């Protein structure tokens, strides 16, 4: 298991180099990228986090996924700080024996990261700065698990 909370950019290829485990036939990755806003004037996405809590919250979520789906490996990376459109925000990866478990575990990780990891996003444009509101769907997505 690897859980990284960092300001620096990460390289998906490098992170995946040693990922996996013998007998794990299925590897799923999810990578989140800063999207421009609908008005197409996003300057940056600022990500605030709760330093004392972030690493432990992510580690707990990753460990839950590992136990529940018998993952051979699991990776969670989440950045904070000021990111530009097109930059990678975060990624998760899961390695399982079969594809269903690998997909489910990755979706579980994403659903929990969205609503249970202490990050807050703020969209910065030339003339405004607005906190991204949590969406009801994101909270209700947790009920699936």
């Amino acid at each position, binding site marked *: 298991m690897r859980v990284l909370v960092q300001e620096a950019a990460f390289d998906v290829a490098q992170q995946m180099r040693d990922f996996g485990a013998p007998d794990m036939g299925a590897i799923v990755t999810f990578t989140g990228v800063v999207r421009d806003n609908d008005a197409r004037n996003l300057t940056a996405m600022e990500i605030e986090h709760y330093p*004392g809590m972030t690493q432990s919250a992510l580690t707990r979520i990753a460990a839950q996924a590992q136990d529940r789906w018998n993952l051979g490996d699991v990776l969670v990376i989440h950045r904070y700080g000021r990111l530009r459109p097109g930059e990678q*925000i975060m990624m998760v990866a899961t390695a399982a024996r079969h594809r269903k478990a690998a997909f489910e575990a990755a979706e579980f990780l994403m659903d929990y990261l*969205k609503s249970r*990891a*202490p990050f807050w996003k703020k969209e910065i444009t030339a003339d405004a700065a607005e906190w991204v509101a949590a969406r009801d769907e994101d909270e209700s997505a947790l009920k699936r698990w």
Partner: protein
Amino acid sequence: MDVLYFAWVRERIGVPRESVETQADTVAGLVEELRGREERYAVAFSDLSALRVALDQELAEFDAPLDGVREVAFFPPMTGG
């Protein structure tokens, strides 16, 4: 105890953290005390349904006891991922 604020809660209250002396038994009691302090607290804590709380870096409910807690954090619903 240390009280921390994040995101727009931090912006409304104006500081990221402060040391607070309280007699409150629960998070809700602490919120009541803070609300009575100054307008900026009353504004930040006007709608508890828009807030989340962590006690010693674990998510908690507003009726949770403060007994033995060293760090309380208030923030809006998280938007990670």
